[in-house]
């Protein structure tokens, strides 16, 4: 096995690796700006300087030459080398800032160069707090600047595209954004304009940066030059807490982090998952915060004398249990949903299995041609594969419409699916039914339903979703509901503000907690009301039961999903399966 010595410590490596990536893989630190593991290596920021040397091989004996002390003679490269572009070789000796004064000096001088024209506007910059330039200047930078002249001024507040704003003065020309559009999104929309100290990234004249993946450039920008039009000036990073979750706006299920402050989702950023999305996510997925924050159903609603009124949970439970108890067999139609989690779908499937002859179906929401072969799928819903694997009957929109209009059924139970919005049912046809809508957001279906039950979104519950490639991943609650408390639930994340904030702080209130519960929990309460055997205390019990009962889900658990960044299910969802 090849060996490499970093700061006098021996490491072993196999195959080809760059020195910087190897150092990072060991959990060691080396400052850098332009390097990104998924992009090409231009080595233009020069921040990852190291001293590098190789042992001298005696060509005649084939042995390494030794000095008087019996140590290998090391021939160092005459200048500092950029670790990002340097291939590790057998016997290589690397000195980083830990052991080399020269490297420390080099890093400091590079930072001084980079900072010559960089504005000192950290207090109003969105990147502050998560800015590699800020962090590395603190750690490795000079204490002041020797540059006494006017800084070069460049364009500010340039709307590069609908979702990205450029502040060219902050740019350090690492070209990560340009390389992203060339190598990852392949839209080739960005370039570096001009040269020397006047250069900055820009689109070609007359074009805009409307790449469907454009906000990824904001994430990889190592300074505050590119900011998201939407998130700009909304929150400081240290005020938010982040929770691992997944993107629920299409069937790819990109791994994301949900950033909340005072139980509002402020932004959604991609989380590294090499099996699904690498470091990226589509812009559309970041809009999901609107689903989590806005237009939410809070408290159950009922139609009384043609008026929709807020009602108590008890009243809603009683009404539904009465109707279901009195319903004739075979007259209840249940819509499971590709928009709901595996747990919720399983719960609704199992709950209604206790009523003879009840039809449980789901209607996939596929819009052909809207996807690409990267991270956007034709399938608009996050869990079609999950429904299929659970063995819920798949019905297309026309068939479902026919079922609703047939007059065969009297009661409709709809999980999350916006039937009216999708054109499967009309407001008029729904009024013919006693309809229960278990939904997260107000929409035309919720307004037409006899009883509306508010349920949790992916940002508020533990839920698993099976993506288009058959990979099951899970979400954790990022927002509190009226009935959850991040101080008590150790699985919820807490940011600084959650830990130490008081009512006297900015941004701390209890105003943003929604009065809702997970759909499975509502069904459990309903079963209490109706004296049915249907008991779960937490989502984990449901997923464990699925793992035992359904062979497609065999062996899965929340722990494995967390540890292995999701689990590829054995059976591909395209297979026809019998109901569990």
């Amino acid at each position, binding site marked *: 096995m090849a060996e490499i010595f970093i700061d006098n410590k021996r490491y072993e490596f196999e195959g080809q690796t760059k020195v910087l990536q190897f150092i990072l893989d060991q959990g060691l630190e080396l400052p850098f700006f332009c390097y990104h593991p998924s992009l090409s290596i231009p080595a233009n920021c020069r921040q990852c300087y190291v001293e590098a040397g190789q042992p001298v091989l005696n060509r005649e004996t084939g042995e390494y030459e030794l000095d008087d002390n019996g140590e290998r003679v090391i021939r160092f490269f005459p200048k500092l080398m950029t670790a990002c572009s340097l291939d590790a070789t057998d016997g290589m000796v690397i000195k980083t800032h830990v052991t080399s004064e020269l490297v420390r000096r080099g890093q400091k001088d590079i930072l001084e160069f980079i900072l010559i024209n960089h504005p000192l506007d950290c207090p109003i910059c969105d990147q502050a707090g998560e800015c590699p330039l800020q962090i590395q200047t603190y750690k490795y930078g000079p204490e002041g600047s020797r540059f006494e002249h006017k800084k070069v001024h460049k364009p500010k507040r340039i709307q590069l595209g609908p979702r990205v704003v450029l502040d060219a003065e902050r740019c350090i020309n690492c070209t990560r954004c340009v390389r992203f*559009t060339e190598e990852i999104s392949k839209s*080739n*929309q*960005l*370039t*570096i*304009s*001009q*040269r020397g100290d006047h250069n900055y990234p*820009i*689109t*070609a*004249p*007359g*074009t805009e940066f409307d790449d469907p993946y454009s906000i990824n450039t904001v994430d990889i920008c190592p300074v505050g030059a590119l900011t998201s039009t939407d998130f700009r000036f909304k929150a400081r990073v240290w005020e938010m807490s982040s929770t691992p979750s997944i993107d629920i706006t299409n069937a790819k299920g990109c791994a994301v982090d949900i950033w909340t402050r005072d139980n509002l989702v402020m932004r959604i950023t991609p989380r590294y998952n090499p099996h699904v999305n690498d470091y990226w996510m589509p812009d559309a997925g970041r809009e999901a915060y609107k689903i989590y924050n806005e237009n939410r159903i809070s408290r159950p609603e009922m139609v009384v004398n043609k008026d929709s009124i807020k009602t108590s949970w008890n009243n809603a439970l009683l009404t539904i249990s009465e109707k279901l108890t009195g319903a004739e067999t075979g007259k209840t139609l249940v819509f499971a949903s590709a928009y709901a989690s595996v747990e919720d779908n399983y719960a609704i499937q199992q709950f209604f299995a206790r009523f003879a002859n009840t039809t449980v179906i789901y209607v996939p929401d596929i819009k052909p041609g809207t996807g690409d072969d990267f991270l956007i799928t034709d399938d608009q819903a996050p869990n079609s594969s999950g429904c299929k694997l659970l063995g819920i009957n798949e019905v297309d929109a026309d068939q479902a419409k026919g079922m609703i209009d047939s007059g065969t059924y009297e009661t409709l139970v709809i999980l999350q699916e916006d039937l009216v919005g999708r054109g499967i049912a009309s407001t008029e046809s729904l009024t013919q039914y006693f309809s229960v809508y278990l939904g997260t957001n107000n929409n035309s279906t919720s307004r037409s339903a006899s009883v509306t039950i508010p349920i949790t979104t992916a940002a508020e519950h533990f839920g698993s979703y099976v993506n288009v490639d058959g990979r099951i991943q899970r979400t954790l609650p990022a927002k509190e509901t009226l009935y959850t408390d991040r101080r008590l639930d150790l699985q919820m994340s807490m940011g600084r503000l959650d830990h130490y904030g008081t009512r006297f702080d900015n941004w701390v209130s209890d105003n943003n907690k929604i009065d809702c519960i997970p759909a499975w929990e509502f069904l459990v309460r309903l079963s209490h009301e109706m004296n049915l055997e249907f008991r779960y205390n937490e989502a984990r019990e449901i997923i464990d039961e699925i793992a035992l009962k359904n062979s497609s889900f065999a062996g899965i658990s929340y722990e494995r999903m967390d540890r292995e960044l999701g689990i590829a299910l054995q059976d591909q969802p395209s297979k026809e399966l019998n109901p569990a």
Partner: protein
Amino acid sequence: MQNFEFTKEELAKIDAIIARYPNPQPAVMPVLWMAQEKYGHVEPDVQKLVARTLNLPEAHVHGVATFYTQYYKERKGKYVLDVCTSFSCQACGGYETLHYLEDKLGIKAGETTPDGMFSIQSVECLGACGYAPMMQITNDVYVNHLTPEKLDKVIDDLKKDQLPEFESIPLVQNRTTAMENE
């Protein structure tokens, strides 16, 4: 709006340029140059023409065009007078030359005369310090050892579309020989 197109002959020439390289990127510079010689500038629409012709992203061509100051990203006069004001020329009267031209043509550096004949630019070192003060005309001929009289003549000639001849001035190669010759 002007319609920018390459003629068939030009396209054949471009194909020959592309054939010289393993991929089309390196052809951007010569093709931009062709376009500038044809239209006198490489405004965004001309950059688009180049991108279209080479089947490359517009942004890439824009990046190349803005990198080099010799590509004119906006319309200039027929003759662009690049007056060197870097160190050597400055010491020998570069700014006097520039100001003399500005007064004579009634425009400032960076501007174009209303008749579209002349633009003046103050540029950095053109690598001809031995000829200071000097200027370059439209990325072409160098005019050396400028004096007001010489500038008058150059401007008059240019108005008659006569580019000045390049005068080669041998530099002193060997100090002792030069002294002996004196």
